[in-house]
Each structure stands twice: as C-alpha cells, then as structure tokens.
C-alpha cells in the first residue's frame, strides 16, 4: 500500500488492477489528515464514515468489473463553499455556521458519478475574500512549507491538503486568483478553466461574472484528469476533451518543441516585483525556450487596468450578494471579510458598467494579441508570502499579483510550481490561453514540469513515505 501521497494516475492503475482498494486509499488519506491536520488546519470537517462507506461501494463496483474512469475510488476534498447534500456549507463564516445544503453542487455530482470519494471540506478565507483571519469560528489553514507564512487563498485549505499529501486532489474556486494563489505558494498545480466550462451551481458565489471552479493537484497530468471530469458537456466538446481517457486533452503530451509562447513580462517588470520571483519567472521562460518553445514578448494592457477593472466588478457583485446579511448581521462577519465586502457599497452603477465595458475591450485585445500564439505566460504573485498574522502586510500585498487578468478575461490559466525562493517558499508560473484552449495550457504545463524536473514537497511530508511524482 503506497499511502495518501500517491498520484491519481498511479492510484487509478492500481485500483483497476485491484492491487489497492479504494478503502485503503481513503484510510491512508484519513490517517494523514489525523496525523497532520492539527498543524495545518486544512480541513473544516472530515466525513470519515461516509467516505469509507463510499469507498466500499467503489471497491464492490470495481470487483464487479464496473470501471467509472480514472477518478473511480480516488479520495478528494472540496472547499467549504461547495454544497454537499445534508452537510454544512459554512463558507468559513459564523454567518453560515448552521447552513445545511439541500442538494449537491454540480461539481460534487460530477465527481460522485466519476466515482471519486469526498473525504472532507476545506478551509478558506471567509466567503472567499479578504485573507487569513483569526476572528472566525475556525483557524486559517497553514502553509505546509512554513506554517508561520501566508498559505495563499482563498482556497487555502484545498491547496494545503494537496501539498501536504493529505489527498491527491481538491476543489477550489477562483474569482481573482483563489485557486492559483494558494497553488503558487504551496507548490501545487492549480487550474482555472474557461469561464462557464465548469458549473458553479451549488457553490456560494463571490462574484457572478468572475467566479470559476478549478482543481488543485500535485502535478499537471493529474490536474487534466480531474478537470476533464468536471467539465460541462458543451465545454468538453469545444475543448475536444475525452474525460474517459488517461490523457483527456489531446495536446497535453505534445511537448514544448514548437510551442508558441507569449511572455507577458511587463506584468511583473512594471510592478517592482520581488527579485526571487522575477529571477524564477525569467529562468522558467528560458527553460521553455531551451526545450524548443518559440518565445516572444506579448503586450497587453498594463496590469493595473486589469486589477482595477476586476476589483470593481468583484466588489460590486459581492456586495450585491451580501448586502442584506451585512445590514442585519455585520458583526457576525470577521473583520477582514466584512470590510472587503462592505467596500462594494461605495461603487456606483456607472463605475460598475464602465468596468464591464473595459472588460469587453480587454477580452478583444487579448484575443487579437494571441493570434499566432499558443499560450501566454507570466508571473503569478509579485510578492513572496508574508507572515500569516501580519495584518498590514496582508493588506499591502492583497493586490500584488497577476492572476486577476485571467478572471477578467475568462480564459483558462494554470499555476505550475517552478522554483523555491531564497527563504524556501514555492514560486509558481502562470500559463494561460484563449477560451477553450485548455489542451494547450496542459501541453505547456506538462512540458514545463518535465523541464523543471523536480518535485515540490514540503518538509511536513518528510515522514510520509514518498511516492513517484511523475509517471
């Protein structure tokens, strides 16, 4: 038995060949959660009995020759703003502490049909906004690379659970980078697909026109497998994705040779970026070039145009969602979340519409700039994680990132770990593409992982028996 840190692909092979059971995989995940989560706070709740019962059903199906695909029998976790019928969806907030979901979110249904086994729900920033907070009913998740540092967010617990080897994959949501941020700083792969490609039904919204669901995994190939199982049928058709296949995206194994890469270096060069991040980003792009990619500079509008546009839309839409509750129970929110959400009350309709007009311009600009280019690459964060309890630094670095552009554009974007900083924290590179070009994103991500050629494992996992990272 290989433990909780096994890759999805390896686990799927072993499960199908009946060399390992789903019950064993779920037991391994539960045992790692029990062993490590007191330090990490990744989980808000663990469904031990339900998960073991679901795993037993998976094993019976596999014994009968029923094979649902590569996620059949695989344990996973979901951010606790995603509904699971009969269970609490807390959004990591006192406001929703008694909120019992009546039905499964669409993504939970899809994963259930694919045979994946939900072991628990993970920590987040309150209602997916703000940052790590200590005035909520549950503590914030801790970065497994250094528990005193910011774990990224808002899908913090999902990234921490995957990075620490507690589960092979987890679901997050991404409205301004909330999958890619924790992926970047926890050293895992986080993907936000094309807007609308995965249903957000049953996920507590933050901003209707910016919200996405996305998977976090330990490598890009596993990520492609999970994404394929989550797609709406029309999106899968447009991506030419075959969810039942071991390689669901046709281009993903095509390698870097000949890949046309646009480097949006202005996003970080114009932003007084941290020097470790600048060096790692440039080095990763050079690595792409040295492995045969054709790299040229890609010019888009300044990062600030995207950031202000995205923030305006997010704040206005999130206030509309929370207005009534803020009026009636504002003291029940945590300080950081409450202030972020109330700020939207100050945005005029004129400013909101102007932001949506700017967004139209930016999408057209991107589609035009990407003619003759397969993928765009750029930095993810512009600062290394600050201390988890440094209030001023959390506020100051909140917008110091280049992830929001891809929520504004609604195009697929992934964060892949590329290096460690001088203080030992992971750094991610973003890879984006035109709408429905997820296959090219995975081609670049798999190629980059292979070129980087190393695993990113936090020391918290050192006592866990190590598994193969690529296979």
């Amino acid at each position, binding site marked *: 038995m290989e433990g909780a840190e096994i890759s999805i692909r390896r686990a799927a092979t072993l499960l199908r060949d009946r060399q390992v059971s789903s019950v064993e995989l779920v037991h391994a995940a539960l045992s790692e959660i029990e062993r490590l989560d007191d330090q990490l706070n990744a989980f808000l709740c663990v469904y031990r009995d339900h998960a073991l019962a679901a795993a037993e059903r998976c094993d019976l199906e596999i014994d009968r020759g029923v094979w649902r695909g590569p996620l059949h029998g695989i344990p996973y976790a979901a951010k606790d703003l995603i509904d699971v019928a009969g269970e609490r969806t807390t959004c990591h907030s006192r406001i929703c502490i008694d909120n019992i979901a009546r039905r499964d979110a669409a993504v939970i249904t899809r994963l259930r049909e694919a045979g994946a086994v939900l072991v628990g729900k993970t920590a987040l920033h309150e209602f997916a906004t703000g940052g790590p907070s200590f005035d909520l009913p549950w503590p914030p998740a801790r970065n497994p690379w250094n528990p005193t540092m910011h774990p990224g967010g808002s899908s913090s617990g999902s990234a921490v659970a995957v990075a620490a080897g507690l589960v092979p994959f987890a679901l997050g949501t991404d409205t301004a980078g909330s999958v890619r941020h924790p992926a970047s700083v926890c050293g895992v792969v986080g993907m936000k697909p094309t807007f609308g490609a995965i249903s957000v039904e049953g996920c507590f919204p933050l901003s209707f026109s910016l919200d996405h669901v996305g998977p976090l995994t330990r490598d890009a190939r596993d990520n492609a497998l999970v994404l394929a199982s989550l797609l709406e049928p029309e999106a899968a058709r447009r991506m030419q994705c075959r969810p039942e296949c071991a390689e669901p995206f046709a281009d993903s194994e095509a390698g870097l040779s000949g890949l046309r890469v646009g480097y949006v270096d202005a996003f970080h060069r114009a932003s007084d970026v941290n020097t470790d991040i600048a060096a790692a980003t440039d080095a990763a792009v050079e690595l792409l070039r040295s492995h045969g990619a054709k790299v040229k500079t890609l010019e888009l509008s300044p990062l600030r145009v995207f950031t202000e546009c995205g923030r305006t839309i997010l704040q206005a839409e999130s206030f509309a969602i929370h207005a009534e509750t803020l*009026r009636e129970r504002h003291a029940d929110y945590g*300080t950081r979340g409450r202030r972020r959400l109330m700020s939207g*009350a100050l945005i005029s309709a004129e400013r909101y519409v102007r932001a949506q007009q*700017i967004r139209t311009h930016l*999408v057209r600009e991107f589609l035009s700039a990407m003619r003759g280019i397969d993928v765009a690459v750029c930095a993810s964060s512009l600062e290394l994680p600050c201390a988890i309890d440094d209030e001023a630094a959390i506020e100051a670095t909140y917008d110091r990132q280049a992830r929001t552009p891809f929520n504004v554009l609604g195009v697929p974007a992934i964060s892949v770990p590329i290096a460690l900083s001088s203080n030992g924290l992971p750094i991610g590179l973003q890879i984006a593409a035109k709408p429905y070009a997820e296959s090219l994103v995975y081609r670049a991500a798999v190629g980059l992982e292979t070129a980087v050629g190393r695993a990113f494992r936090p020391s918290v996992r050192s006592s866990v028996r190590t598994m193969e990272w690529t296979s």
Partner: protein
Amino acid sequence: MGALGDDDLAFASALAAAGLHDLDPADLAFLRRAHERLQRPLPLPTGFVVTTQPACLPALFSEDR
C-alpha cells in the same frame, strides 16, 4: 464639529443608501479610504471607447471562432 464637505456627504450618503449603519470607527476608517480610492477614475486601456458594450463573455468568446 465642522460642517461636512461634499465628499463627506457623498460618503455618508453611499453608506446610508446601502443601509449600512452603526459601523465601528475602524470599519468606517477602512471604508473611508476605499471611498477615497474610488474618487479616482478607472484606468482605461489604450483605444478604449466609452460606448463599448459591457462584457458578455460567451458572446466575446464566439468572436474568436
């Protein structure tokens, strides 16, 4: 207490219109700073035309086909 300026009134009106009352002073200070930032116009991309339609992503994506 001095007379409220236009900007103070605009800030107070926005909060009142949103139904946000009895906020603590630290929250008000945070929101005041947010209000001040919002006095600056949104930065515009080069070539932006004010009559551009608000975004509808599926329709925009289909322009690329």
